[in-house]
Structure formats: C-alpha cells, structure tokens
C-alpha cells in the first residue's frame, strides 16, 4: 500500500503576492541569461519592477482577508499585507536606484534582481509567519540573499567586507534566535503561535525555560532590527554595501524585523507581556540614545544614516513595547514614513556618489542648495522629517509613537524619544547646513578609474542627474510632506493593520 500523504489545502489567492515575488525571481534569473545587452540592462529591471508591482496589486486585492494559509503556517491579514506593500515599494525603489549602478553589472543583472526578489519573498514569509518554523524559514530566506547582495560589488573591498561581516554577525543572530525558538517550543510544547499563546497564558514568570526562550528570541531579533547593544554591525555593513542595497536594507529589512517582532511578541507572547515589556522598553531607550549619540560625529552620510536607523528602531520599538493596538498602528505608520524619508535621502546620496569623487562624504552634498535645488530639497525634507519637524510625516509618526507610549503607561519612554530627537538635531541639521550654507567642496582630484566608476554616458560634472534617481528622490520627498499634511489615508491603512492582531486592546 502506498501511504497517502495528506497535502494541506493551499489557498493560492492568499499566497498570490508571494507567488508573484518568487515567480518574478525565477523569471529575472532566466531572462538575465539572454545575450542582448538591452535585455539584461533594461528588460530585467523592468521585469523585477513588474513583479513587485504585481505583488502590490495582489496585496490590495487580498486586503480585508484574515485567514490562515498552509494549515496555519502563515497568517494573511492586514499587517502582513500592509508590510508587504512597504517591502515592495522599497523593492521598486531599490531597482530604480540600482538601474545604472555598478553593483548589478558586476553581479550579473539576472542574479542581482533575483536575489532582491527572494529577499522580499523572505520578508513576506517572515511577517506572515505564525509558526516558529516558518518564522525561521522566512528569516533565512531574507538573510542569505541579503548577505550576497551586500557583496555584489565584487571588485570593491568594502563591499566584500560588508558582506562577510553581515554574514558572520547575521548568523550569530540567527543562531541565537533559533535557540530562543527551540526553548519556546520546549517550554510550551507547540510551534504554533496560537498554541504558544495558550500555553503562556497564566504560568509565566517562574518558567525559566520560557524566560530563556523569550530572552534569546529577543536578542536574535534585536540583531536583525539593529537594536542596541546588538547594533554594532550596522554602520560597517551599511557603509560597505552598495548604496542601493543599503537603502533597501535600511527600510525593508527594518520593517520586516519590526513586523516579526510585533507578531511574535504581540501575538504569541502577549500573555507574558509583563515579563518582556520592561526589558524591551529598556532596550528601546538604550537604542535611542546609542544610535543618536553614535551618529553625532559621522562624516560619512551612509554611516550617519546607519546610526540614525538604529535610533529610529528604538523609536519604533516603543510601539511594540506597549503591546496595544495603538502601538502596532504607530509602529506600522512610522515604518511607512520612515521608508519615504530614507529613500529620498539615499537617492540623493547615490546621485552624488556618481557625480563626485567624494563618495558618501558629507562634503559631497555641500553647496547643493544654490546649484541643484532638485537634489537639495529632497535631502533637506528627508533630514527635517527624520528629525521630526512638523509638516512632515516624521512629525506625525513621532507624535503617534509618543501618543502610544503615553497611552500605554510608558510616559518615560515618550520622553526618551523626545530626548533622542533633540540629540539627533545636531547631526541632521549638520547635513542641512552643509547643503544650504556651505560652498560646494573643491573637487580637486579627477575621478580615478578604479575608484568611482563614471556613469555610462555621463561625465562626473554632468549637470543632470539620472531621471530615475531624481524620480525616487523627489517622489519620496513629496510623499514625506504629503504624509505630514494629509495623513488620513495612511492612518486608515494602519488602522486595519492594528485591528488584525487579536488579543490586543
């Protein structure tokens, strides 16, 4: 007799965003093998954008569904879908930023965009996971291609170093998380989030196995979300990686890591909230201070944004700490505006990297205000928004987070967010001051060939920046402002995401 294997029911409609991403990954890999240059350099990125766009479209189509997929391995709800849309928007931006960048050319176009799509698919699995095994599966599907992406500029030492460093530190994080997940399974006898939540209910504080599991899982996720004191890899990796990859990591990986933290802590471990809340709040506070202080002395814009991303993780963690619907909504809201603010800044950095031999140094953007308003304004708006000035999405986002913190009885954490913002002014304003109030840096040395590859068809002094980069910079800057003036659509979106999590109030 042949033993009949029961295959689980598969809801293809619910899985369709994931299918679009993985299908796109395969397609670009195959198409990238074709000979003609225009296919590799033009058609492949377009295909990647199309696949991201399809995933967004399918997410909108599935909006409002709240079902379990694959026998409860994945959860399709508005939290998954809203974050997926964020990942895909970041993905489209990353494709645009990479279009004429050196990284995909060195890594071969098909492979590069295939990796990018796989990372995004991993993010979908990660934030949708409601089972410890799928969670880890998603995490690895996200991480492994990302290690490779960091090292795609194969002829630049920094890029290779960054990839290796990320691989080592990331593996430590993954291993720690895996230990934590194993402990959780041992303590509760279930890999299923619902089962864990039932087991955790009640008997908590004296179960050392469970406590160990929570602690190790927290540390593992802290590595991924670059939460202090597990953030040390962030500046090095961000600085070394190709800038489009850095931009994608800064926004999408952050969103994925916080998304899974929300789901793990606010769904599976919600019964133990009195155990982890204070610890997580402490970590958030440390992260805010460490990130902001670390950014103070940086002269490399990528390092500066890396430390700033550490600090922003701390702000967003406040939304996780309070374990309320409001907190979830505030975190998702901030993730969305954070995406817009950062991508605008990274687009400008990439443009200047190609135009000047100064790389990502702050000198590269000096004097932009008088000569290049289309670059100066997006960078300025992005910096002011990150600092939390009003009339930008950053202000509303910070307001929302403080609101959530205060309403969740963490007034002191709200004050720490504010203190962090004060420190952050010093470095964000330094960039703005460089843009508007300093003369352009003297570009003495001509571009040496191996160091900064000149853009095809464009001299370093080219007056016009590539149109797709300008589009990213101006578009996301406009979105940042729009989110500060008419935030209601975004609020509606995150409202549904907050409602999706059961057991919160």
């Amino acid at each position, binding site marked *: 007799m042949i033993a009949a294997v029961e295959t689980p029911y598969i809801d293809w409609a619910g899985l369709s965003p994931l299918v679009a991403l993985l299908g796109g990954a395969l397609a670009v890999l195959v198409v990238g093998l074709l000979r003609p240059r225009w296919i590799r350099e033009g058609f492949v990125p377009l295909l990647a954008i199309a696949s991201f766009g399809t995933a967004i479209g399918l997410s909108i189509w599935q909006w409002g569904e709240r079902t379990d997929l694959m026998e409860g391995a994945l959860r399709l709800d508005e939290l998954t879908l809203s974050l997926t849309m964020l990942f895909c928007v970041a993905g489209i931006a990353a494709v645009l930023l990479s279009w004429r960048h050196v990284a995909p050319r060195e890594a071969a176009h098909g492979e590069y965009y295939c990796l990018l799509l796989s990372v995004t698919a991993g993010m979908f699995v990660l934030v949708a996971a409601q089972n410890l095994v799928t969670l880890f599966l998603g995490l690895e599907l996200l991480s492994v291609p990302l290690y490779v992406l960091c090292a795609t500029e194969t002829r630049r030492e920094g890029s290779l170093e960054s990839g290796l460093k990320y691989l080592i530190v990331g593996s430590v994080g993954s291993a720690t998380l895996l230990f934590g997940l194993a402990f959780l399974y041992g303590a509760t006898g279930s890999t299923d989030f619902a089962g864990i939540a039932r087991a955790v209910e009640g008997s908590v504080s004296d179960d050392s196995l469970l406590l160990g599991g929570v602690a190790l899982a927290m540390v593992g996720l802290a590595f991924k979300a670059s939460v202090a004191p597990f953030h040390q890899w962030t500046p090095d990796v961000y600085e070394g990686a190709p800038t489009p990859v850095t931009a994608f990591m800064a926004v999408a990986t952050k969103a994925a890591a916080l998304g899974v933290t929300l789901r793990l802590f606010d769904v599976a471990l919600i019964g133990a909230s009195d155990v982890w809340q204070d610890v997580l709040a402490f970590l958030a506070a440390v992260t805010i201070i460490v990130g902001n202080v670390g950014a103070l002395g940086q002269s490399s814009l990528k390092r500066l944004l890396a430390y700033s991303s550490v600090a922003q993780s701390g702000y967003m963690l406040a939304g996780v700490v309070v374990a309320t619907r409001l907190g979830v909504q505030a975190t998702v809201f901030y993730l969305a505006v954070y995406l817009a603010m950062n991508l605008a800044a990274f687009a400008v950095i990439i443009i200047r990297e190609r135009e000047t031999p100064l790389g990502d140094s702050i000198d590269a953007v000096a004097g932009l205000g008088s000569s290049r308003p289309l670059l100066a304004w997006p960078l300025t708006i992005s910096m002011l928004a990150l600092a939390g*000035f009003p009339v930008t999405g950053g202000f509303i986002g910070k307001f929302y987070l403080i609101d959530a913190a205060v309403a969740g009885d963490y007034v002191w954490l709200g004050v720490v967010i504010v203190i962090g913002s004060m420190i952050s*002014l010093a470095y964000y304003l330094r960039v703005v*001051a460089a843009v508007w*109030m300093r003369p352009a840096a003297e570009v003495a040395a001509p571009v040496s060939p191996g160091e900064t590859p000149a853009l095809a068809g464009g001299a370093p002094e080219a007056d016009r920046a590539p149109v797709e980069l300008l589009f990213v910079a101006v578009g996301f800057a406009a979105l940042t402002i729009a989110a500060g003036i008419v935030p*209601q659509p975004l609020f509606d979106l995150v*409202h549904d995401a907050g409602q999706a999590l059961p057991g919160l109030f």
Partner: protein
Amino acid sequence: MTIHLSIVIFLPLAVAVVGLLLPTALVRGVAIVGSLLVLAYAIVIVADFESGASGLQYVTNDVWISELGIRWKLGVDGLNLFLILLTTVLWTASTVWASLRSWDRPKLFFLHLALAETAVLGALTAQDLALFVVFFDLMLVPFFFLTGQWGTGERVRATTKLVIYTLVGSLLMLSAAVATGVLSASGDQSITFEISALAERTLPRGTQDWIFLFFAAAFLVKMPAFPLHGWMPDGYTSMPLPVLAVFSGVLSKVAAYGFLRIVLPVFPDATVHYQEFMLLLALMSILYGSVMAFTTTQVRLVLGYSSVAQLGFIVLGIFALRETGAQGAILQAVNHGLVVAPAFFVVALLAERVGSEDLRDMGGLALRAPVLATMALIVTFAILAMPGSSNFVGEFLILLGTFQSKIVFAFVASTGVVLAAVYALRLFIRAFHNDRGVERQESREISLRDSFVLVPLVAAIVALALYPQLALHRSERSTTQAVAEAKALATGEVARTAVMP
C-alpha cells in the same frame, strides 16, 4: 462677517509660492502685495471684532487627524487679536524693507519670510494644542534657513545653536502636549487636544507639575528669558536685520502668549505652585537684561538684552495672576513688538551710515539726520516707557498686578523701569549725539524709501500711545478669563480642584 482664518494663515505662503513661479524681477512686488493683503485682512478682523462678546470668534473647527484627536481649530479672541495685527504690521514693514535691498536668491528669501509669517499666524490662531505645537515648531524652520543663508558672521554656528536651543524646548513641549491630551482623558472620554476642552478636564497635581516645566522651558527659551538665553547673542548678531526685526518683535510674543493661552488655563495648579519660581526668573531676566544692555556696545545686543528685560516684565505680568497684570502683559507684548522692530531698522540705517554696529564708532548723527534722529527719539522714549507712551501704561498695569499679588517682587521689578531709562538713553546719546567731529559732513538723512517703512511704524507707536484703550478694551474679557482659574487658586477663593495623585 465671515472671516476664514485658514485663508489668513495661508495667504502669505500661497502668494510666495506664486512668486516662485514668476520671473525674479517680480518677486519683490509679489512679496509686498502678499504682506499687504494679509495686513488688510488683519485690519478687517480688528475692525469687525466684537469686543463685548466672550469666547472665540471666527472659529474654524474641523477634524484634521481623527485617530490622534487633533482638530483644525482656529479662533480669535482678545488674547491674540492684537498679536495677529502686530504680526501682519511687522511683516509688512520687514517685507517692504527687505525688498528695498538686494538679496542673494531673492525668491527663496521671500519664500522663507512668507512661510515664517504663515507659521506665526498659525501658532497665534491655533486653538488645538497639537496644532499649536505644529505651528510653533514650524516657525523655526524658515528662521533657520534665513539666518544660515543670508546672515552675517558666524551664521551657521549661530543658527544651529538657535535651532537646537529652541527645539529642545519645543520637543519637550511636544511630549508634554501629548501627555496632556492622553492623560487628561479619564475613563471613556476620547482624547482631545482642544484647548478649551483641556481646560475643563483636570490632571493630577504631580503630572501637571512636570508638564508645566516642559511647557515653560519651551516658552522661556523662545523669549528668551534668563537663564535660557544662551542662543540670543549669537543669533541676534547673525540674523539679517529685517528678519531679526520680526523675530524679536513677534516670535518672543508667541511664547508669552502661549503662557496665557495654554499654561494658565490648562495647568492652574502647577501655575500656582510655580508662581514664585516664575516671578523670580522674570525678575532675574529684568535685572540681567538691563545690566547687559547697559554694558554692551553692540547695538543689536543692546536691543537684544533690552528684549530679555522687557520679556521679563511680560512674564512678571502673566504670573502675577491678576487681571491687570495679564492685561498689561498683552499690551506690553504689542508695545514691545511695535517698538523693537523700528529700533532694529534704525540700527540698520545707522550701520549703513557708519559702517559698523558698534556704539563706539557712532555719534553725531542727530545734526546730519534730524528726521531720523527724531524718529529714533520717539522709539527710545517708548522703550524707556516714558509716561504718556503706551509702554508706560503696559508696565504700570504689570506692576500694579504684581503689587496686588506679590509686593516684594513688584518693588524689585520697579528698579527695572529705571534701568530701562538708563540703557535706552545711553543708546540714543551714543548713537546720535556725542559728535566725534569726524568730517562726514554730507547729509545723512533717512531716504524717502526707507521712511516708507519707518514712518508708519513710528506713527503706530504714537497712535497706540494716544489711545491704548484700543487694545486694552478688546483684550479685557479674554485676559480675565485666562487668569481666572489660577487666580482663584492662588488667592484661595476655591479649594484645589485637582485630586492629589
């Protein structure tokens, strides 16, 4: 008459954005037209204002962000009516003044200037705490750029210092504002930031205390008051003069207004608790500001430190927690704005003629520029609160209020009046008399185009001196209402309303 305050607020910005799209040659004209339009609108509001009615007029009240309970609520009452007029008057003067001079990248300059006016008008009319915070923080952005790009000397350092100082205060205020909204909603009340609604809810004493301190930090930095004035010397030295005129004339008043609009009605217990502390800070500002104004030789800083002293008087009037004191504070806020702006314009004219802003290089201009000297003399008399000037009425009311509540503070503060005479007269004598016999004999009279700016401002000072009731009458009801609860607590007419935590 229907008046839409949203239009008043956004008119300057809208006109400036139109100016961006036009050829550079037209920018100045557009900027002047824009500021005049807003001024006209403000005059209509003052004329139309019903001084007998209590409560807000021309209210706009819409939902802005429903999730956060933030409303787009604007309104005018006696507290902000004349500050709005003052804002539009000074902005018109500054815009005209600036358009008579040449600037690098004029489009951006006038855009920032207009954005600043929009933000200030927004902060003055906002009746929702969150909205107030938004506009209060927004005020800073254009001044950061105006100082950093068009300033003089160590402008980048100065502007960074200015922004960090003020934003530290503002961000503290942001967290305090959120806490006020969230913590005052007890039971199943929904969160609101409407100031009138917040005034009716009560916060526990301990919470009120820290929230009060956060708000006070924001306002005292903005004024600036001793000992939070560290940004002032650098900031004042670096700002372009027309920008400085509105900055010193209006922005510090927004802070003083914030005390009356928000702090006194919403945190009455903490206000009473910290009354003497605030009075002490006010006294120190008066004495420190006066002494510094007397010793420094930089003309801008003489005016800067005199502002510290004057703002000290305003804080004194507010925290006397008496109707007379608060009324005097509002009147004095208008007076000071109206006086300090022309004073800065006179400084600019002096600097253009002498080539330096140091008192030691000046002198003897009274003979060569009698008209300018006369106008400067009127301004000087107003600064030193000459009996007959509106400043005299303002300071008198403030001291009267203080005498009624805390007599010791009033006695010490009275010396500030004398000190003001000393530094104001020194400024005038050193700048205009004191002929050093240099051979600059040609006429140094004020030009016709500059007098377009200066003469109306001086005329406004004289007009207000002749008829200060214009402002007093319209603000009376609102100031009484603003101090009512705190006064009742301070004098023990009612028992403490808030529950002990």
